[in-house]
């Protein structure tokens, strides 16, 4: 029997101890009308060997490509040690560390994660993670509404070029609490500082600034941070954790720094894996920590005065506060954070900087190669890590031809941002080589119906 250790003798002895004839008798409190004899639509069980065969065949049915697609999920190198360690049974099969004395490994690891993440975004404190970037963004909006000095406002300003899928997810999650996202004016692929005056007469709880934005654009974060703080708004930074190895961290924006930082942790050692599991990160200034959702680990002492770690500030959480909790969240992405913490240690700050710099340099090389083709132009600069190209024809058929040639050519921006025309978002991480970029250039020329110059 799969995973059930009972021998016939065990079963007989246990039934006798309980005083019933068979296992079915243990379900005698379920009304007869509700009982079913089995699950006829479920196929019979399989041996491990048969399931291995099935899943290997399924994995082989997927099609691998040369990837120039980013748009919120990035193919980076993941050191072999990361998942070797993260999938050790003591991490993989441990529960949430509520019994602190029996969970010091996970708790110390989360404390180290919180320290690294807070340092990376240059804010005071971090939580133990949330589900993914989109939900972290939504939770940051809710947190800002709770914490804002503009107490009556349930509206949050958001840059137009934030990840469109994150915005949709946030709208689902914010609807129940009547929190509304209002778009900032934009031009040239980023927020338009000149047009902000129109918002001056209104109350907002916070402003959300992506860094870099969905187009790879660099928002005027210093000016926007000061503008928002001057109007009692909180500033939420939505950032790529690899990019801020090189870009100015949220804590240094403007005169006072951003108040909350959140984002998608996937670039820190998490496989693409069809979109999940990833993890969302969140950090904030110390003064806001009691409004932060999710688990938080703190350092303390045991009865002998030794350092130890424990979940803390649990009075914010659903198992204590029930309907008055800061969120219904009772999970963090523990295993993903385990991997990310190991990943950050293996890279170190110099390694992270180099990865970020190489991503940007490769993307610049990609932009140079593709814009050498007639009719292909760069839409905006400066950019970081990702860039928007204009094609001389609609993007979708071009991407389909590239896909047929084994290349994921980027993300079609037409549906979400029609003002950009035939716009293609491209990205080359540190893994792309000069040969990869040349392969793409030639394939793009072919996909656009041009003769290829080699």
């Amino acid at each position, binding site marked *: 029997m799969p995973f059930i250790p009972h021998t016939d003798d065990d079963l007989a002895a246990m039934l006798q101890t309980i005083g019933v004839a068979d296992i079915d008798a243990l379900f005698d409190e379920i009304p007869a009308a509700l009982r079913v004899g089995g699950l006829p*639509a479920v196929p019979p*069980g399989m041996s491990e060997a048969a399931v291995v065969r099935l899943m290997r065949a399924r994995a082989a049915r997927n099609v691998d490509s040369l990837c120039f697609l980013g748009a919120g999920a990035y193919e980076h190198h993941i050191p072999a040690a990361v998942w070797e360690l993260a999938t050790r049974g003591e991490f993989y099969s441990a529960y949430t560390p509520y019994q602190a004395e029996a969970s010091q490994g996970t708790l110390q690891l989360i404390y180290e994660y919180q320290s690294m993440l807070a340092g990376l975004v240059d804010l005071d404190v971090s939580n133990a993670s949330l589900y993914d970037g989109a939900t972290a963004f939504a939770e940051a909006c809710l947190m800002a509404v709770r914490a804002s000095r503009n107490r009556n406002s349930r509206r949050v300003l958001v840059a137009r070029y934030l990840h469109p899928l994150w915005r949709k997810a946030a709208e689902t999650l914010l609807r129940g609490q009547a929190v509304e996202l209002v778009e900032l004016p934009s031009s040239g692929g980023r927020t338009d500082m000149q047009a902000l005056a129109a918002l001056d007469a209104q109350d907002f709880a916070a402003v959300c600034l992506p860094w870099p934005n969905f187009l790879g654009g660099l928002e005027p974060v210093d000016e926007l941070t000061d503008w928002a703080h001057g109007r009692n708004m909180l500033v939420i930074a939505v950032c790529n954790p690899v990019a801020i190895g090189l870009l100015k961290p949220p804590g240094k924006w403007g005169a006072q720094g951003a108040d909350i930082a959140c984002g998608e942790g996937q670039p820190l050692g998490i496989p693409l894996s069809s979109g999940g599991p990833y993890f969302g990160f969140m950090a904030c200034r110390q003064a806001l920590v009691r409004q932060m959702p999710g688990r938080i680990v703190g350092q303390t002492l045991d009865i002998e005065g030794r350092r130890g770690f424990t979940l803390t500030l649990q009075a914010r959480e659903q198992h204590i506060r029930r309907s008055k909790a800061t969120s219904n969240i009772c999970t963090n992405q523990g295993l993903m954070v385990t991997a990310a913490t190991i990943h950050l240690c293996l890279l170190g700050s110099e390694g992270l900087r180099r990865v970020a710099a190489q991503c940007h340099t490769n993307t610049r090389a990609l932009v140079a190669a593709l814009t050498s083709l007639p009719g292909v132009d760069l839409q905006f600069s400066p950019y970081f890590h990702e860039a928007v190209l204009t094609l001389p024809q609609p993007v979708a058929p071009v991407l389909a031809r590239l896909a047929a040639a084994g290349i994921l050519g980027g993300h079609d921006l037409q549906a979400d941002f029609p003002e950009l025309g035939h716009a293609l978002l491209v990205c080359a991480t540190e893994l792309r080589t000069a040969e990869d970029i040349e392969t793409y250039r030639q394939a793009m020329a072919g996909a656009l119906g041009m003769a290829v110059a080699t």
Partner: protein
Amino acid sequence: MRREDLIFEQSRPGRRASTHAPATIAAIDDLPASVLREAPPPLPEVSELQVVRHFTRLSQLNFSIDTHFYPLGSCTMKYNPRVSNTLAMLPGFLARHPLEPDSHAQGVLESLFDLQELLKAATGMSGVSLTPMAGAQGEFAGIAMIRAWHLARGDTGRTQIIVPDAAHGTNPATASMCGCEAIEIPTGPDGDVDIDALRRAVGPKTAGIMLTNPSTLGVFERRISEIADIVHAAGGLLYYDGANLNAILGRALPAGMGFDVVHINLHKTFSTPHGGGGPGAGVVAVNSRLEPFLPIPIVGKRDGSYVWLSEADRPQSIGRLSGFMGNTGILLRAYVYMRLLGAEGMRRVSGYATLNANYLSTRLAAAGFTIAYPQRRASHEFIISLKDVARDTGATAMDFAKALLDRGFHAPTTYFPLLVPECLLIEPTETETRQELDAFVQALCEIRDLAFRDVGELKRAPQTTPVRRLDDVRAARQLDLVWHSRSGTVN
């Protein structure tokens, strides 16, 4: 005692791991200094061997299913098959970019489509969405669908969600997140919902009720059909919290009990890892009336190929819950597990989980422990109350929990549900041997003996863990959430 320095304390300036980053730093000459970082992020500078040793040692400070019996009530800590992990981590699954064309991901999509069908069969429901990333998000999706269903019918005044007092804390928290008000109703002395209180609670404001069945009291709600009739007659819908689905798998269907929507914790019933606190998966299944409102994306089949269905296909959907399509890697692990088990294996899960719980409950009762609902049949879990021991000796449920750690057992769930004083909620799961259960009974008996003999010694537990009892008050009052170099090296 074992301890391990923080990785920051092992760091030395200029030390590198690493063949993991580019060998040189590329010049950034196209960006103004105003957008660049001035000081490098304060990450540790350590060798790869230091990293491997550090995290291996940290792992050894944990209890886990792989190392210890984990009778944690309502958490279903069963064995996580290794093969589920191995197969979900095949390179052909890990390399999938979430925005690649559906044609490139047919092997993933087919597996997820099959998983949707298996979950429909296991619940009796007609529609499934796999996108919720944890139980709490499944709850959110369920209540949001109930709200959307009422609103789509123009019934705008239904804002109350009824929740029994034994419910998980997520239930009332979810109601609040969905803009609803949680109305708590009491439990009767036999552990079933107080039907008269329910009758008084329902009305034109009732959006629905959230129930776990078997409940967190470890007993099957026998009058569930009557409850369904009362709530439906009042115009509300029924939400099944699938936390305890392990207890009835293949024996009864949430749909048959009258529920309209159910969330399933794949990390409980279908044995995906808890990972030290996630990732989970809280998939939702619904009957036909709620199907149009399911969260997107959903896997569909069109012209012989598998496709992601989104806004255009499901215009009434409550929307997206994640950046992409949820915790796919976890879904694949659950799928592998379900294929290994098959129909008979699933029915055996509930059978042997219930056998183990009833055996343990019977043995503990025989040993003189107080069972919270002795007149009831235990489901896959049960509660003992240590109220009498506490009265006679001063030893609390927490003392028992800590003393169990010293004897090599993870503690059961303590002080939940809130309505049983000094309680331990015990769920052994089907994957434990009779010998392990016997050893657990013996440990509890020894601890009780110690309570009567020398309660002071009991209160000193745990003594064999990497740290002893921790000062939680200090942790909350003198918040120390991140390491600073000023903290210095602790020797």
